[in-house]
């Protein structure tokens, strides 16, 4: 901040930028679209939109789980394990016993029940045993994945129960110009979930409580929020969301592979962090998060379109995350210099 803009101008700029970097993300997405579109004209097609939508619909739901936890001041790395555990288990269960074989709804319900149970495991470790969230969820991630691979199955399953089979081929849009470019109908529940989470975070007591805990748990307690109960609720919600997203993933790919998802946590965490959520809690928004998810999906798709080898995708997401967090840290340090928050120093140490 070498030149100090006038107060009015600063206000206008900061409003354009959005409270959670939404403006910056919109600009980044627009710039990326323009550049890739210039290099590769086939970018400007419905296929791009459908591809990004297909990619984002499950990641947006995963990101909601990560967002809720991060707003409360934690970090969850077990969500992918919960997702694949729930998705894979429902397929195995449906094939073996015929339970929920005919109804995709029932399949999703069972997945959510599994997600709640696994979320309870996180809640126990974090709210009751009071473990640091990263370490607790690293532990539960290993346990959940281990239990799935040791006791539920290790085979890749191509046969689905009829209910899910038909859901997996129910498309909202199909682009006949491009091969296999369609958008699954699950984009609708995905959007609904994002809206519901947004309303929950903004307008309910639970949502305000989550922000309060993230701001300062002790203050939240003194303000009368039931902190432990809220924490349990947070990890239950995260579990249910992760399970839903996992189910969406398994349904979309039509090949239940228990080795999938785990290891891909960073794509989602990066999206949430880019979307303006603070790892220290108390800050974050659904709109920013969704933009972050779309940006990462767009980057991954563009790299494929431009013929860049897959390995570079991993590097690109890593670089993007580093740029995002550095920008955030720098702007926090700027605020610190202006005397608003005395947290940057401790944050860095």
């Amino acid at each position, binding site marked *: 901040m070498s030149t100090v803009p006038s107060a009015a101008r600063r206000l206008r700029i900061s409003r354009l930028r959005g409270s959670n970097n939404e403006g910056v993300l919109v600009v980044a997405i627009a710039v990326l679209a323009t550049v890739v579109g210039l290099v590769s004209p086939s970018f400007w097609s419905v296929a791009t939109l459908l591809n990004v939508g297909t990619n984002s619909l499950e990641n947006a739901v995963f990101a909601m789980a990560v967002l809720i936890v991060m707003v409360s*001041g934690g970090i969850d790395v077990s969500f992918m394990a919960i997702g694949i555990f729930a998705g894979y288990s429902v397929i195995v269960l449906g094939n073996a016993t015929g339970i929920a074989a005919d109804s995709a709804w029932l399949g999703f319900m069972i997945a959510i029940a599994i997600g709640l149970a696994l979320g309870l495991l996180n809640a126990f470790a974090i709210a009751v045993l009071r473990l640091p969230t990263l370490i607790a969820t690293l532990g539960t991630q290993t346990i959940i994945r281990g239990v799935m691979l040791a006791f539920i199955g290790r085979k890749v399953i191509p046969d689905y129960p009829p209910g899910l089979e038909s859901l997996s081929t129910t498309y909202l849009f199909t682009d006949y110009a491009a091969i296999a470019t369609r958008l699954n109908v699950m984009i609708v529940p995905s959007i609904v979930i994002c809206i519901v989470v947004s309303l929950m975070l903004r307008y309910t007591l639970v949502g305000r409580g989550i922000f309060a805990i993230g701001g300062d*748990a002790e203050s939240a307690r003194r303000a009368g929020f039931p902190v432990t109960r809220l924490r349990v609720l947070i990890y239950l919600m995260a579990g249910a969301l992760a399970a839903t997203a996992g189910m969406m993933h398994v349904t979309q790919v039509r090949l239940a592979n228990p080795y999938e998802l785990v290891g891909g946590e960073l794509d989602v965490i990066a999206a949430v962090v880019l979307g303006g959520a603070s790892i220290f809690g108390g800050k974050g928004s659904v709109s920013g998060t969704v933009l972050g998810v779309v940006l990462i999906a767009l980057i991954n798709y563009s790299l494929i379109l431009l013929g860049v080898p897959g390995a570079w995708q991993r590097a690109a997401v890593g670089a993007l995350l580093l740029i995002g*967090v550095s920008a955030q840290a720098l702007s926090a340090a700027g605020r610190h210099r202006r005397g608003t928050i005395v947290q940057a120093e401790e944050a860095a140490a």
Partner: protein
Amino acid sequence: MTDPSAVIQRLLPERSLLRLAAFAIVVLVVFSLMSKPFFTVINFQSMGFQVAEVGLLSLAVMLTMLTGGIDLSIVSIASVAALVTAQLFAATGAAETTAMTPVLTAVFILVGMLAGTLTGLVNGLLITRLRVTPILATLGTMQLINGLMVAWTNGRAIYGMPDVFLAIGTGTVLLAPIAIVVLMAAALLTAAFMNRTGTGLRLKLVGANPTAARYSGLDNGRVLMLTYLASAFLASLAGIIIASRAASASADYGTSYVLVAIVICMLAGVNPNGGYATVTGVVIAAFTLQMVASGLNQIGWNTFHYQIVQGVLLIAVIGLNTFSEQGLLSGLLGRLRRRRPVGTRPAKAEPGP
């Protein structure tokens, strides 16, 4: 000085070390009873070969935790050191043993370690200059470096190292694997650095209370930079041993070690919020976990069972430490609550301020 809670705080770690040693002995006895080949020289040798790399990575994580941070990029850094060394061998065709081989090997290892250690510089700069939280900074570099390494090698493993190099990971001196000797030397040096040098003390101070450290005139940035360089150095050493034991180098080797290293640090009683770490504890914990792995393997459990055990151990151990601390300090709870909000703000403290 006579603050009773301070005295208890100093004694607590010793307690957790004792508990760890007891646990190690229980593991040793139980598996010796359950499996005949467990308590044999061969088995201890084979455990020794495996424990070195994980032990070195754990020491790296321990140093960063001592300052209240974490390094998730250790395995990526290890692969940098391994791949640079392996590529040098491949590029010069030095796999054939000649008179020059020992010299070349030493040079290539040094270059690889230098490359790995310099990668740690990126972490250090992000954390000290840009003030990014260690967990996010190292999460990002973990992914970025790994992606670059996969892209560099097209995801393939690199072969072709001379026998001198392979001896590091597979040879023995007086029955002891060379790798273990390397681990022990690194552990002794780390311990001496932590406990006998001013810089080591500064590390501890920055971890215990960064604000107090700054107000007492410490250059926190320099201390942290040094920490992440040291962590990268230890990780690079681990990378050399991994490559030497596998007779090849790949960006995909050892990805599961990040979790294992954190489990080991937690078993050892290292405080992830900074201020306390013990090299002895980390070494014992590394051996204990290796005994668990090897023992479970011998009684017919697979890797997935072992993963479950790792996760359960991790949660059980920290849970136990938290609870015993609370029980012991119940009398002083009011005072301690204010000073060190262990239970009140775990999420806040977790990213390692």
